[in-house]
Each structure stands twice: as structure tokens, then as C-alpha cells.
């Protein structure tokens, strides 16, 4: 009987969270608006969840983390916590994208378009068709003005001939509904830690682990290079 545990961290948006899976069953999850101290909030939540589950961190068998895209600072904090735990406790680590985390909680047998907030004028998008042999589109950041072109090019006939579920924030809903009038919409604020846990658990079961030294967030956007700061030292 499978009894291994996996701890998952979600920190890509304004609501962060922790989830714990044991043997393929959800032991518990915490979602919280973290305010300014994200790492502190995640650690308090992790500590509480482990205590309630009568576990200690070294007893966790694997760690999963949402790699993004999302808040740059949130990504870095979540990834650093997960990779440092995996590193020092010598435990397996899996990374899942924010798109995968959303898809993990979606109904089966339907094509998905996951739309997450990027900048004020753009969305992070990934299309996951449920057609045999079809691959997911590469994750992309698309400006509002280019959404129509991206949808036509990426979704093709799927936008009208297949059942399509759009998972996204209120802004994504507002921008995409006129372009996809036949699609179903599911509103979310941020990816759910339970989705990170399920997607992570499947990766863990499949042996798709990553070395903590090589795990990096999925930023999609390059760093803003202005203005430069003087060196310290």
C-alpha cells in the first residue's frame, strides 16, 4: 500500500498555499492571503499542516512546487523553500507549471485554455488540447491586443469545433469571452496548492524528478533591465 507523502507549495499569486498528499489521498491544504511576508506565511502554514497530520518535515518523502509563471518574487520564494528542503533533506523534488496545476483540477475529456495574469496588458497562456496526439502549446505571454491572433493561430479549429474550458482570472474572463463565445469559463484567483500537489504527485509517481540545483522558475518574461543600480560591496 502506497504511504509516501508529498508536500506541495503554491506561491505564484496573491493567494499562496500548502498541500499535503499521502499515498495518493489529500491529507490537507491551506490557502492564505500572504500579505508581505510570503516565506513566513508559507512556513507557518506548513508547520501547522504537518503538526495536524502528525508529521515532521524530514518525514515528508517528496516536495513539489509551482514553477510559474506568476509573481517574480513569489516564484523565487516558493522555489527556494522547496529546493532547499529537497537539497538538505535529500528528498525528491518535482516542479510543475502554474498551467499544469490548474489543469490538474479540471474535468477530464475537455480541451483547456489556462489564462493567468501577466502584466496589466497581458496574459500568460497555455492551450492543452484533449485531442489524441496533440501537444500542449508552449507557455506564452500574450498582450491583450494580440489575443485574437494568438487564439486563431494556436487553437485553430479547436476554438469552435471542440468543447473548450477556459480557466483563468476575472481579467482573463473579460478579455477572452468575446473571443471565445462558445467556451466554458472557470474563474480562479490563483493556482490552487491542491492542483500543485496532484500534478506533483503524478510526476513523483512517474519518477519525473529534478535535481534541486537545476530547478529554476518559469519566468517567461525577461528581467527589466532599467534602471541599473550601483554595485555594493
Amino acid at each position: 500500500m502506497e504511504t509516501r507523502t508529498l508536500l506541495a507549495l503554491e506561491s505564484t499569486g496573491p493567494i499562496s498555499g500548502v498541500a499535503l498528499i499521502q499515498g495518493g489521498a489529500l491529507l490537507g491544504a491551506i490557502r492564505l492571503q500572504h500579505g508581505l511576508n510570503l516565506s513566513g506565511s508559507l512556513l507557518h502554514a506548513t508547520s501547522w499542516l504537518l503538526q495536524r497530520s502528525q508529521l515532521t518535515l524530514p518525514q515528508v518523502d517528496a516536495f513539489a512546487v509551482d514553477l510559474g509563471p506568476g509573481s517574480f518574487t513569489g516564484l523565487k520564494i516558493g522555489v527556494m523553500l522547496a529546493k532547499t528542503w529537497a537539497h538538505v533533506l535529500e528528498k525528491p523534488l518535482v516542479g510543475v507549471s502554474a498551467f499544469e496545476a490548474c489543469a490538474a483540477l479540471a474535468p477530464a475529456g475537455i480541451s483547456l485554455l489556462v489564462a493567468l495574469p501577466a502584466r496589466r496588458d497581458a496574459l500568460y497562456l497555455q492551450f492543452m488540447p484533449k485531442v489524441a496526439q496533440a501537444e500542449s502549446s508552449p507557455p506564452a505571454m500574450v498582450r491583450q491586443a494580440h489575443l485574437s491572433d494568438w487564439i486563431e493561430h494556436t487553437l485553430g479549429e479547436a476554438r469552435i469545433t471542440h468543447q473548450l474550458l477556459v480557466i483563468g482570472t476575472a481579467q482573463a474572463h473579460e478579455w477572452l469571452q468575446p473571443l471565445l463565445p462558445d467556451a466554458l469559463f472557470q474563474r480562479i484567483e490563483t493556482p490552487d496548492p491542491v492542483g500543485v500537489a496532484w500534478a506533483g504527485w503524478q510526476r513523483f509517481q512517474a519518477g519525473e524528478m529534478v535535481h534541486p540545483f537545476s530547478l529554476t522558475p518559469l519566468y517567461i518574461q525577461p528581467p527589466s533591465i532599467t534602471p541599473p543600480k550601483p554595485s555594493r560591496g
Partner: protein
Amino acid sequence: MRLILGIETSCDETSAAVVEGRRVRSSIVASQADLHARWGGVVPEAAARQHVERLNPVLQQALDEAGVSLREIEGIAVTNRPGLVGALVVGIAAAKALAFALNLPFVGVHHLEGHLYSAFLTDPDAPIPFPHLCLIVSGGHTELVLAKGHGDYQLLGQTLDDAAGEAFDKVARLLGLGYPGGPAIDRLARTGDPSAFRFPRAWLEGSHHFSFSGLKTAVLREVERLRNEGTLSEATIADLCASFQQAIIDVLVAKAVRAAQEWQVSVLTVVGGVAANAALQSQMREAADKACLQLLIPPPHYCTDNAAMIACAGYYRLLAGERADFDLDAHANAPLAK
């Protein structure tokens, strides 16, 4: 409390170190200078991303070189202020994760307090004399601090505008010398005439404060004049570097020695990246000798940002019973002392 793991990610150096009190067992610094050179200065988001990639391997290397396992570490010290917030949070997250996983005490350390302790890393057996005067000169800070005891500091003076290192970087950029500017100006100044150009010195009489923006503007005007005349040769650039550098050194040396005399201390330390400047070191030594002051300047690898100095400062805080909790946060600006 013996073995402390230090973490420093406040700007563009990813660093981890293991110290045993003041004895450095390992000090690893992964510099990002090459990355940021293309932009002429530190790009905060790029620096933070590099920390995420490099910190865990750097931590492992620090442990390996120290010949210790994580199980032997007894406390963790991490820079939590001041600095680039996006960069600081990476080190803080790693420190909290380590402390949680291994059930270890940890503390947040002020970056400048770390620099202050860097003067005492070279000879771990020599006592740390209190009170002593510390001149902190780096890219982000120029401060005169009276250290009265461990964790007990009084700010005597600070720059009212640009830090000394900031002035070095800006003048180097103006002259097309690349980034970081300090080493390039130090090198060129050796072949230049420090009296070729008479640049202003802001003495700010009656205070221990500093000001370098007027000097920077004077260099800018001189460079513009020379460019317009078509006389900005390599030799002239060397003279400009030497004259600019001398103007900074004159002020730093005179003010540091004067403050040490005024506060009747016998030990003066000079720390921070600018303390690695060869001309500053020799002229400060000469002035300190004349004033019968003991001068301590760390070797160059402890002048620039490093985690050994953070671990050392953290060691004394942990020894005094200080403990941080999960709510420890990053702060872009925070005074070392009032």
C-alpha cells in the same frame, strides 16, 4: 554555539560561508559582476534570478570546503537588510528553509554590521577592541560608525548624497571604463598624476558627514570640456582617475582620522568594497601611523560582499541569545545605528 552557516544575497554576490566563531572554515562567493557588466550596473531582477540558481550549489560548496555536514551546523545567519529586496528574499527563504528543516536557530544580520566584523576575520585570536571606529565605504554606503560593543553602534556620519563606491562607478561609466568602476579607476590611477586636476573636496566642517556628488559633477564637467577640446587622451583619463580618486581619499582619510581622535579610540577599521583600493589603503595607513592609531583593513576578499562576515556577525548575535522567527523579513533600507 560554534559552527555558523552564513548566507549573503543582498546585491550581486551569491555567497555562503561556514565560520567557527571568527575562524573562517570556508567562504564561497559566486560573483555576478560579468553578468551585470553588460548593463553598466546591477539589474535587481537579474541579480535575484541568479541567486535562485546559484545559492544551493554555493551552500553545498561552502559545507564541502569547510569539511562539515549540515548536521554539525549550530546556527544560521542571513543578511536581511539593507539591500535589493528581490535579492534578499532569496537568501532569507533559504535560511528559513534550512532552519525549519534542521530545527536550527537563525538570525537576520544587517549587511553593514557584517562589513564591520570583516575587519576581525583575518586574525581570529586577536581580541575585538571596543570602542573602535569603523569607516564603511562601499558602492551603497559611506558611514563612520562608533562600535561600542557587539551590536551596539553609534552613527557618527554618513554620505548626504552619493556613496564613495557609487561615485567610483558613475565616474568609471562616464569615462567608459566599464563596471565595476572601482578596480578600473584604481588601476588607471596608478599611472596618472593625482594633482593634474584640482577637484573639489566637500569637507562639511563641523560634521562627520560626507558628500561626493559635487565631485562627480566636477569630473563630468571636466570630461565634457576635454571632449569638446578633443584632448581626452588615455594619459588624460589616467590623470582624471588619479585626481578624482585622490579627492575621495583625502576626505575619507582626514575625516576618519579626525573622528577617531575626537572619540579617543585607538583602533580604526576600514571596510567595504572601496577599502580594497590600494591608494586608499596606503594613505590611510600613513595617516593612522602619524595619529598613533591601530589600523585594520580586511584582505580584498573580505572587503567585497561575502557571507563569512555575515556569519561572524551572526555568531555574536546567536551567542547573545538572539533568535529570529519565520516572520523575519527583507528591508531595502535600514540604518545600522542612529
